[in-house]
Structures are given as C-alpha cells and as structure tokens.
C-alpha cells in the first residue's frame, strides 16, 4: 500500500518502488506462464476431439448416430456398428465395480479402523504396489492362471449355483466377459482402495470420538460417523476406478475373447471399445474400417467424459450436505 511506503530520501523511495514493481513483474510473468499451462489442457482436449471427429467423418457420414446401436461389425462387407463394444465396455466396467467396490472399501475401512497398527502401512503399501504392475502383465497372468482357474473351477461352480439366471448359463470357454471383469476388478482395486484409505484417514478423529462417546461400537462409528463424513470422497474413489476400467485395454483384450457379439451370459466372449481399437487398428484394411475405429474412439471419449461428468454431479449433490468440510472449522 502506498501509505506504508517509507518516506525517507527520494532515492530510497524510488528504490523501494522499483523493488516492488520488480516483484509485481515477476508475478505477472509467473501468472502468464501458469495461465498458459492451465489453458493448454482444455486446448489439448479440444484438439483431441477435433482429430477424432475428422478421422471418423467418413464413418459418421455413412452410418450416422445409428452406428452406436448397430450390432454388425463386418470389415469385409464394410458394415460397421459399435453396439456390442459399447455394451461390452459398460458391462465389464459395471461388473468390475460390483466386485471391486465392496472389497476395496472393506479393505480401506479395515486398514484405517480395525487393523493393528503394525499391519496398516505394510498392507496399504503392498496394495498400492499392485497399481504399478503393467496391464500386460495382468493380462498374461490372466491367461495363464486366472482363465484356467475360472474355466475349470469357478465358472462351473457359478453355473451350478446361479444357473437359473441367464447371466450364468451357457458354454464355458474361458475367455469371457466375466473373466475380463474379474481382471479389471483386480486392476482397479488398488486405486479405489488407496484413495478410499486416504479419504478415511482424513476424517477428523473428533467424528469417531463423538460417535463412540454415544456408545457406538467401532463398526457403528464407521457406519454413523466415518463413512457418511467421507462419502463424497469415497464416491470419488469409485469414479477413479470406473474411469480406469472403462479405458483399460491390454489385459481386457487378452481375456475377453474379442468377439463382436452380445450375449446374455457373462461366460460368453465379448469385446470392449478399447480392446477393439487396439486389436484392429494396425490391420485396418479399408479407409472405412479405419474411420469406423476412429468413430469408436470418439464414442469412447464421449462416454468417459459423460461418465465423469455424471460422477462430478453425483459428488456435488452428495457434498452439498456439508460433507466437504467447509463448515468444519
């Protein structure tokens, strides 16, 4: 503020002014740099979208919006429809979440509330290590270990137990929607678990104490105070897992069976959008095949953006109740 400037000699005052404006200039340069960096990200997103739209244009022109609802995928005849892949993508991700969410939230609650102190960090770190394994390694493990196990033990058991549901009927091949979902579940668990754990650790101890002072058991304290307090963060953790599941390519393509088809049974092979792009792009023989795959990529892009937007909306709705901790001070 001008009033606080020293009023000594004129030169001293000028020096002070210079120092001050110098600082301001430094700030300006810094701000321009950061603004550019921040704007580069939305720009990148738009550029990506533009490239996808341009590449997909022939397919968009020929198949229109119906592309997303058509079942045929026949590169030889030049007929393309992405419906089976869209269903496969959403279905594998959904099933993966159904498996991974209870497990990872359970582990996170255990590690923050119940586990003995010496166990907490080592177990958490081990689980986080799982996130660092390349997905192709998961794929190989899936092919050599998981699939035989599922094919000979788990799937027959499921069929005999739940065979009255169409989901668990039919021929067991091994590579299948369910196998892909299970590997996805294993792959996204470390992410959901570690974020959920951080979120639960951030719940103030006073919330836990308040519940326990009311005569809550540990489990009741988790249910009445800790999980509700953390719920928007926990949803965030799940969304992070979903985002990864939707886009996961390598392990899925190794386990899903890669068939452009929709089946009521989870034992049947299927396809996901990401897997199809990865598998067919190098071998795309015709320009239309290429354009159709780009169209699939565009749809995948749109679906992930929509899912994330829906998730943000959900978190916003949930955190309006004051969970965000704005008023906690």
């Amino acid at each position, binding site marked *: 503020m001008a009033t606080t400037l020293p009023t000594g000699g004129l030169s001293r005052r000028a020096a002070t002014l210079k120092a001050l404006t110098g600082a301001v200039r430094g700030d300006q340069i810094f701000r321009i740099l950061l603004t550019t960096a921040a704007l580069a990200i939305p720009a990148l997103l738009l550029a990506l979208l533009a490239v996808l739209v341009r590449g997909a244009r022939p397919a968009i022109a020929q198949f229109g919006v119906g592309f997303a609802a058509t079942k045929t995928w026949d590169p030889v005849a030049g007929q393309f429809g992405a419906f089976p892949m869209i269903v496969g993508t959403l279905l594998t991700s959904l099933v993966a979440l159904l498996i991974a969410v209870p497990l990872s939230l359970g582990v996170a609650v255990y590690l923050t509330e119940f586990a003995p102190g010496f166990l907490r960090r080592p177990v958490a770190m081990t689980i986080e290590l799982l996130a660092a394994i390349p997905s192709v390694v998961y794929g190989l493990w899936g092919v050599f270990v998981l699939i035989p196990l599922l094919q000979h033990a788990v799937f027959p058991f499921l069929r005999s137990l739940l065979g009255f549901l169409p989901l668990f009927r039919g021929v067991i091949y091994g590579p299948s929607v369910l196998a892909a979902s299970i590997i996805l579940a294993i792959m996204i668990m470390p992410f959901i678990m570690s974020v959920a754990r951080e979120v639960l650790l951030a719940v103030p101890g006073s919330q836990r104490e*308040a519940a*326990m002072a*009311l*005569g809550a058991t540990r489990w009741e304290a988790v249910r*009445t105070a800790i999980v509700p307090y953390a719920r928007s963060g926990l949803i965030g953790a799940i969304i992070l897992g979903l985002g990864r599941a939707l886009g996961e390519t390598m392990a899925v393509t190794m386990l899903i069976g890669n068939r452009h088809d929709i089946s009521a049974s989870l034992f049947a092979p299927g396809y996901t959008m990401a897997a199809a792009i990865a598998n067919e792009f190098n071998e795309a023989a015709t320009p239309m095949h290429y354009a159709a795959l780009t169209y699939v990529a565009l749809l995948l892009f749109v679906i992930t953006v929509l899912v994330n937007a829906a998730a943000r909306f959900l978190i916003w709705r949930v955190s309006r*109740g*004051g969970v965000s901790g704005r008023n906690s001070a």
Partner: protein
Amino acid sequence: MTEVLPRVQTSSLTAIYGKVAAVKSVTLEFAANQVHALIGPSGCGKSTFLRTINRMHEMSVGGWVTGKVLLDGADVYGPDVSVIQLRRRVGMVFQKPTPFPTKSIYGNVAAGLVIEGGRSRAELDRIVERSLQRAALWDEVKDRLKTSAMALSGGQQQRLCLARTIAPEPEVILLDEPTASLDPQGTQRIEELMFELKRDFTIIIVTHNMQQAARVSDTTTFFYLGSMIEHGATRQMFTTPANEQTEAYITGRFG
C-alpha cells in the same frame, strides 16, 4: 448430612500414555446433581482425567489406566463392564462442536438413540424434541429439524451436541472445555444451561476459564502436572484456597 454414595469416584487413578503418566494417583469424589469443575494449566492432565471416566482415554495410542473409577459404586474398569453401556450412562461433549455433517439436526440428536435401537418413530420424535428443549435449542431449530446441522452457528452446534448427549438419558455428562471455541454469547448460553441440567444430571466440566469455573460449579478441583492439588467447594477454593499453587493459579500468577 446422611452418607450418600457419590455418583462418580476415583481411587488412586493413574492414566498413562505409553510410559508417561498424565494423571497421577488421583482420588476424588463427585456428588450427584452438581456441577464439578476441573481446572489447571494446559497439560495438567484434567482432560485425560475426564476421559478416563467414560473410558475414552484407552482409545488413545498407548493409553491405559491403573486404579479405579467407580460409577454409582461399581468399577467402570471391571472385567464384565461393557464400554458401550458405560458410554450410554456417561455422555461427553467435546471442545469443538462435533455434529455429524451429513445428518440433519434431527438425525444428530437421534444418533445415539438410533445406534442403541429399539425405539419407535414417535418415541424418537418425542425424545428429540425434549432433548432440544433441554439444550435450549428447540425454538431456534424446530422449523428446520430436517436441514443440515452444519448450517447452525458454532454455539448452536455445541448445544446440538449437548442435546445429542442428553438424548439417551445418561447419568453423568462430561464436558471437555465445551465453550473454548465459542463466542461470549454462546458461552453464556451453555453456562446457563448447566444450572438447568444439573437437576437431572451430574456434570463434570474441564475448563480453562476460571471465571467460568467460579460461575457454574459447585466444586472445583485444581490439577497441576498430573496431580490433584486441591479439591473443594468452589466458593471456598476461590476465596480461601488452602494450597499456595492453587492460589497462585487462580489469581493468575501462572498457567
């Protein structure tokens, strides 16, 4: 005066964190339906002492106790005592208001009852209303019971926590510096409430504020470095303290 069993009694109570004794061999008695103030400088062990009464101390890392805490003559550290049942008989309000942020005002007051279970909706309604009235909050919130508790002011939140604590009808209420984060008005409301509440409950309050202790309490206990230095009727403590340290502390010469 006839011999009446004190509501809360401690004998040779020592509370330990790891290897450090925060409370050293304290023997005290707290009569029913009175307000008992615990005073002393920071780190003197008064909060730890309070937390041994409802066994919250043992939840701290390395927290354990020796000696006895008797509630109506029965040792709360006895082998067949349920901590859960104990905490329903000995409620606690903390220094900072701790409303459950995702619950409504109603949901907060009912929280302890819901955990306990076994009450009808009508019963809950009645107890919630009565608890809010006893916490002098009913008139301010009766039209918005279903709204978030986080919209309340700090003072209101603290009275909400008080309502939540008294809803399950405990015998003893422990207050751990309940007005430390409140403005003077909020503080005054809580202090006024204590006069009302001591008809039904026994109140033990930890406070940093000696005027508060002098205003609200029937007995005062002075803690210093983990030891109980002096315990007596509040009026006597503040006018003619027996101990030099007590006098030095209450006249503001240290602490």
